[in-house]
């Protein structure tokens, strides 16, 4: 059997942490085809990857198609109501067996030669099977199924590796932040039934991953969006985000949650602005309706106010899931130089339609192909990618704030003001993610 030869990549040499330069990484991490292939194999095909949400396939026989790394897959709720992830690939000639983005079907039939599979993955019909005589493979020819799935609060993850890190261990402390986000809904569940839209950029997938915990860029890249939001806000507190100025302000905290997961935590800044907060919130969650319903649920208005101030946190779950404000988004690496970001508005179960519509509206004002924020980010990613062409100085700096990191005694405390949390001020966590990424790629995962 042919075994592809893997070029050795010295990741340690591509990441430098020293007193002179702080933390810097080599831009080859964004432009090397071998590195990209290793990321696909070791991160997207061996590790845990977010696939979709249970509310996208609520009914028996529902399915959606997704791409895992670069592999087409089907997320299916079978006739037995069990959720599975299959590679969208006929075992005969390798054609995709499902051509629709979503739907409801008991079967997936390959149109090329008519082979048919149940939505539980079983090969149930080989057309003209007798012609094969005794030459049919004796092994299982069912659809290739992801051997492991992980579920948390409706979020579905999959791993194509039969063995490896247990799911909850992988999710780690990111689970707490997902819980906080879901708990913003009166009935503690979000639902992703509003569909999705996608925006593409000509740049490496890690650009978006790193950007989500980069509070540094907001007031520059998003100057026009922040001005538009501030100028049209209905309360005086809304402009606070733009006026914050000092980015070392501990109100903006970024935490390394381990495992490549990170959060740009909005709790402190939200709480500091009390009821005036809108912009850094999650739409509707500070409304009387939601606070009231959560107060009833929790039996405490104080607790409801505290919980709802978690809105707006930017949660990054390595490698491809991000949850912030009014939407769940995923990063889709398309190729080394091309990526797509998909956004699914997250509606709150138990909230009025008015609140959920406001969330959809708020989301698309900011994000998607014509949002106020996303297109400017995409532009920056493309410019960053262009910068990688010039190798005269291949180093890029992600060292801002590293000198001010500290570890908390209780990083899940109610009071998020220092020194009670482990804080990586703006861009510190940047390094955390990239560092983690490269270390994973550095043969730390089971091969």
């Amino acid at each position, binding site marked *: 059997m042919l075994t592809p030869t893997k070029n050795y990549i010295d990741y340690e040499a591509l990441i430098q942490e020293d007193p002179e330069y702080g933390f810097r990484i080599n831009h080859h991490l964004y432009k090397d085809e071998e590195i990209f292939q290793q990321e696909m194999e070791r991160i997207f095909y061996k590790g845990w990857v977010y696939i979709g949400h249970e509310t996208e396939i609520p009914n028996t026989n529902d399915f959606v198609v997704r791409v895992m790394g670069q592999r087409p897959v089907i997320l299916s709720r079978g006739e037995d109501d069990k959720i599975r992830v299959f590679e969208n690939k006929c075992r005969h000639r390798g054609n995709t067996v499902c051509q629709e*983005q979503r739907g409801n079907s008991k079967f997936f039939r390959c149109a090329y030669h008519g082979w048919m599979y149940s939505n539980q993955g079983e090969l149930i019909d080989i057309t003209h099977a007798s012609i094969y005589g005794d030459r049919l493979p004796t092994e299982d020819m069912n659809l290739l199924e992801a051997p492991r799935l992980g579920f948390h609060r409706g979020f579905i993850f999959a791993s194509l590796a039969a063995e490896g890190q247990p799911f909850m261990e992988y999710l780690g402390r990111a689970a707490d932040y997902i819980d906080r986000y879901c708990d913003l809904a009166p009935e503690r569940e979000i639902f992703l*039934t*509003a*569909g*999705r*839209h*996608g*925006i*593409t*950029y000509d740049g490496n997938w890690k650009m978006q991953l790193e950007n989500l915990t980069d509070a540094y860029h907001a007031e520059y*890249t998003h*100057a*026009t*969006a922040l*001005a*538009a939001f501030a*100028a*049209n806000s209905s309360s005086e507190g809304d402009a606070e985000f733009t006026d914050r100025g000092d980015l070392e302000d501990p109100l903006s905290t970024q935490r390394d949650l381990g495992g490549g997961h990170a959060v740009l935590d909005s709790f402190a800044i939200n709480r500091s602005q009390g009821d005036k907060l809108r912009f850094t919130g999650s739409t509707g969650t500070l409304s009387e309706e939601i606070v009231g319903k959560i107060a009833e649920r929790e039996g405490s208005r104080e607790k409801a106010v505290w919980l709802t101030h978690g809105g707006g946190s930017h949660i990054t779950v390595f490698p491809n899931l991000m949850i912030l404000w009014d939407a769940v988004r995923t990063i889709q690496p398309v190729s080394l130089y091309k990526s*797509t970001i*998909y*956004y*699914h*508005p997250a509606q709150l179960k138990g909230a009025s*339609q008015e609140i*959920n*519509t406001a969330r*959809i*509206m708020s*989301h*698309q*004002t900011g994000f*998607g*192909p*014509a949002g*106020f924020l*996303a*297109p*400017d980010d*995409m*532009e*920056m990613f*493309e410019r960053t990618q*262009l910068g990688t062409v010039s190798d005269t100085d291949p180093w890029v700096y992600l060292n801002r704030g590293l000198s001010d990191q500290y570890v908390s005694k209780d990083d899940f405390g109610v009071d998020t003001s220092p020194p009670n949390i482990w804080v990586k001020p703006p861009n510190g966590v940047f390094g955390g993610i990239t560092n983690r990424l490269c270390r994973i790629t550095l043969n730390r995962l089971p091969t």
Partner: protein
Amino acid sequence: MEIPKDEIEAFLYREARFMDQHKFVEWEAMWSDRGVYWLPCAHDSDPMTDVSILYADRAGITIRLGRMKSRNMYAQDPRSVVSRIVGNIEIVPAEQGEGVVVYSTFNITEFKRRAHVTKQITWAGHSEHHLSQVDGQWLMDYKKATLVNSDGELPALGFLV
């Protein structure tokens, strides 16, 4: 009512020119007070329950244009060169009121010029305008523009469609 075909067509061509030339003030003046501007993500979607590429009420249109006028909207720095053909214009009386509903097809070529990288992108789709007259002037009450790839993966869309 007798449909003033020439007037309506001229309105759409004028709108196309303003959009091509990024004439935001002039374009905004073509809207009535109750304007709704919508780019759906799917042909059969409901803007109240489904995500859209863009959905703006009259106030939202003004806010959006305010950002587009800025030189700091980096997705349009420098601004795209845009050229569009509007055709297949079909005008029918509105089911209610005195206005008209106009169906048309658009085909847009966008040229994104950057210092070192340029891109040419084709956009296409169908528009539905609801127009009514105010003081003898036709104005847009509603515009829905459905891109052929509305539910696909799109590059940043930074000009008017």
